[in-house]
């Protein structure tokens, strides 16, 4: 057996230029190795750069620094031995199932007869027999993603890249597809040697992968690497499985070494220039209520609450972290623990809630405090949106600035801290009559 790795990434770094000439760092210090027979999972939340890394490996983008090697050769442009399965399937709606699958072989100018043979074999393998002449719109989501798999497998890639391939499917369909995939993989019936799976679903990662790389954000980097040595097929209910899931939750909520507090880790710099997540006040209140109530009584195990609420980590974490930022909760060791104020909020009536929320917003979110101060100081008690956007753009991209302002406005409206008139793009202290 060949011992040299299929894929190697050394010190890969990716940054995008910002309009003002500075750069936005999305990925840093990436080191990764994929060996034959392995499924490696890239686990992290949206914005942690895992999809960016996948696109670098696919040759769809170029790294700013560092090296990517496929079978020892540098990757420049899409390599023939690397195929990808997309989250949104990315099928061509004007081609039939067969034509979609054959596309990659057509691009290689393979003889017509071979194309036919191999495409039909791939269609057969992935369980699409009988659907050859259907158009994608006639298929269910699960069947569409099977076409996505067949299209990738037909080119006989060494490496299969999967970009959250099951996240657009409903729970049952996703499970069937996962099991089918693992069966084929375990029996060695697929012409692939290694798999990289991008996911934000912790259980999915533990179910499928041999190694899991946990990603952190701002900038995207690898926090830790976890080996999964449970035998296949794995059982979600087995204690070892649960333990591993729990451990990853702990990893993902851990305070980083070096003494920096977890708060700063999540919201770097936590000055006026920190990016804020789009989390509605309803979600915040809802999570606080749930955690305050039985059976959690103020402290909730994240895996438990995630499965109770049917939330995936990239839905749950932003809410939990926003609570932490507002000092309504502490996030540590895979647990979410409400603070005293958090408990008070959960038990209060609407008006009291608004008062508590307003106090915390203006104390712990510097941007909210800043906007409020500007509005207080001005005689007109109003200010243009562009003023704050300009300030934020010193720290982040235009889009992020807009989203951050939107996020803080959402909370401020709930807290009745200040108001905003979209028509004239003006912030003000008073709500229009």
């Amino acid at each position, binding site marked *: 057996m060949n011992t040299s790795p299929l894929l190697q990434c050394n010190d890969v770094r990716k940054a995008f230029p910002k309009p003002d000439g500075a750069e936005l760092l999305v990925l840093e210090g990436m080191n990764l190795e994929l060996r034959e027979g392995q499924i490696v999972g890239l686990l992290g939340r949206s914005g942690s750069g895992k999809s960016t890394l996948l696109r670098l490996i696919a040759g769809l983008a170029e790294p700013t620094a560092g090296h990517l090697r496929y079978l020892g050769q*540098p990757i420049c442009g899409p390599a023939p031995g690397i195929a990808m399965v997309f989250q949104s399937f990315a099928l061509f709606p004007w081609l039939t199932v067969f034509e979609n699958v054959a596309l990659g072989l057509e691009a290689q100018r393979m003889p017509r007869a071979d194309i036919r043979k191999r495409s039909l074999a791939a269609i057969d393998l992935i369980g699409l027999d009988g659907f050859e002449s259907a158009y994608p719109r006639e298929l269910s989501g699960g069947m569409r993603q099977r076409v996505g798999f067949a299209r990738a497998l037909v080119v006989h890639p060494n490496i299969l890249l999967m970009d959250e391939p099951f996240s657009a499917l409903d729970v049952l369909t996703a499970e069937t597809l996962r099991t089918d995939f693992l069966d084929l993989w375990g029996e060695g019936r697929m012409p692939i040697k290694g798999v990289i799976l991008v996911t934000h679903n912790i259980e999915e990662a533990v179910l499928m992968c041999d190694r899991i790389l946990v990603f952190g954000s701002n900038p995207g980097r690898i926090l830790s690497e976890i080996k999964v040595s449970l035998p296949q097929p794995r059982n979600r209910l087995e204690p070892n499985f649960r333990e591993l899931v729990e451990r990853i939750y702990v990893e993902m909520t851990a305070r980083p070494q070096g003494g920096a507090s977890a708060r700063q880790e999540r919201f770097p710099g936590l000055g006026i220039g920190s990016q804020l997540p789009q989390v509605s006040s309803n979600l915040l209140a809802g999570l606080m209520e749930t955690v305050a109530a039985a059976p959690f009584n103020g402290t909730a195990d994240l895996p438990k609450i995630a499965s109770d609420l049917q939330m995936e980590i990239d839905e749950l974490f932003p809410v939990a972290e926003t609570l932490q930022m507002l000092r309504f909760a502490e996030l540590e060791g895979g647990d979410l623990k409400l603070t005293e104020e958090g408990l008070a909020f959960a038990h209060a009536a609407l008006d009291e809630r608004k008062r508590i929320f307003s106090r915390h917003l203006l104390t712990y979110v510097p941007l909210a405090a800043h906007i409020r101060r500007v509005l207080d100081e001005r005689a007109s008690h109003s200010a243009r949106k562009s003023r704050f956007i300009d300030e934020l753009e010193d720290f982040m991209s235009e889009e992020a600035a807009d989203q951050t302002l939107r996020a803080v406005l959402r909370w401020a409206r709930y807290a009745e801290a200040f108001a905003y008139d979209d028509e004239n793009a003006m912030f003000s202290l008073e709500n229009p009559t």
Partner: protein
Amino acid sequence: MDRFAPYVFLRGLASRWDVLAFIVVIGLIAFLGETSRGLFAPLAQLEVTPLSLDPIHLPEYAARTTFRMLAGLVLSLLFTLTYATWAAKSERAGKLLVPILDILQSVPILGFISITVVFFMSLAPGRVLGAEFAAIFAIFTSQAWNMAFSFYQSLRTIPIELNEAAESFRLSPWMRFWQLEVPFAMPALIWNMMMSMSGGWFFVVASESISVGHTTVALPGVGSYIALAIAQKNLVAIGWAIGTMLIVILLYDQLLFRPLVAWVDRFRVEQEPGVRVPDSWALAMMRRSRLIQAATVAFHAAVLWTSRAVKRTDKPTVDTATAPKRSLDLLWVSLVVAAVVLGLWHIVLVLIKNTPLREALQVCGLATLTMLRVFILIALASVVWVPIGVWVGMRPRAAQIVQPIAQFMAAFPANLLFPIAVYGIVAWKLNPDIYLSPLMILGTQWYILFNVIAGASAIPAEMRYVAANFRVTGWLWWRRVALPAILPFYVTGAITASGGSWNAAIVAELATWGNTQVQARGLGSYIAEATTAGDFHRIVLGIGTMSLFVVVINRLFWRPLYYYAERKYRLT
């Protein structure tokens, strides 16, 4: 249902590129006008088989007109696939090409005819072929721009993951073009082709019966037939022409566009089920026909074969050096500068040198008159068609009936109403400045109707239930439900109607019936007169002024309104 939107706006394009584009386009027109003057004298009147008003000739005329329309459409398609692709693929070129397209669609169609006819006829002196070229080119100019815009827009909005899939499966650029980009752009392109066809019909008289100075050509066709009927005051022949047009447009619709619309339906990327699939008996028949089947198989094979034949260039392993890129940039900039300087030079040569200030002011005054007319007419048409459109749009059955009728009306050439207009104005001694105006909006008001219908039928059923549940009726219902919901659609329609009305002004402000001529004061009649007189300075001056007015009005009025409506009232 799609909106009929030929005027696609692009946000964030630097306005200096607009200015450059304007200079290049008008400069080119000035250059052509100037050259035409030189070519002008030696051309004798063409010997063409005399036309006859006998309806027995109409099938032949109709066939010839149909052929010209098709030729124009094919040319437009070629233009679209090349120009728009270039504009979308090359960031550098796109910066200038897109504004140029914007300016080109503001240049009145008849302006192209008067400027280019002499050139085309000099290509094949003394023969009908040159005139045929000119006519087909004229039709091309009434069809190409909005198609190119729609294609450009589609290329820019291909979903990222589809692009990534194409790239990661290493499709060659050629294969990618035919397997991804063209199919993706197809639905919008077909709708725009239908619109273009209406535009072509509207100007059918002008493009077939060309009269610039002493150059008079009447190519056998429905347009020339109408022109002759007008010259001979033959009402019966006008009736025959209307009948013929109706049949030809109907055939086009049933045999070409409906099958196309039904066929491209599967090209749509949005894959939600439950949407009514357009059907076409013609398509069903074609699908069953062995001949057609063989043809499509052959076409598909050709696409695949050419994909194999075109050499694939893999991405270079070495990072492309910056040096050649910079020199390319330099080359491009110098090309643009040269084009702009040449354009400016011709504008100075033709326009500024030969135009006394008094004339320039007069033309601006006339343009203002026409502008006033366009705005008032749009307002009047809106008052009429918005309520009707909303009513129709809420009733799918009615919409199915009204759509094709409106589509036919949009193709109805203004010339066909000349007899009524001229009779009426002469008989009752009416003011032509006012009473000729309705002809301007004759063909374009339907775009308001189309779009309002589309908007009203897109109002979610739940919104209507809410309104009914809370008994929101009467004026409150219009103010709070119907009008806001259709506003983005209405604005699109109004923009189309406005642009089209400017274009139609040249036909509409100067009406003839036999020897009687009725004229309204305005930029349209100014250009029409200059064309008849063969005065190229005034033609170019008129065209340039009209383009300038249209572009400025679009930028200062319609574009902001469009974005406002899209942002605030678009139901997503």
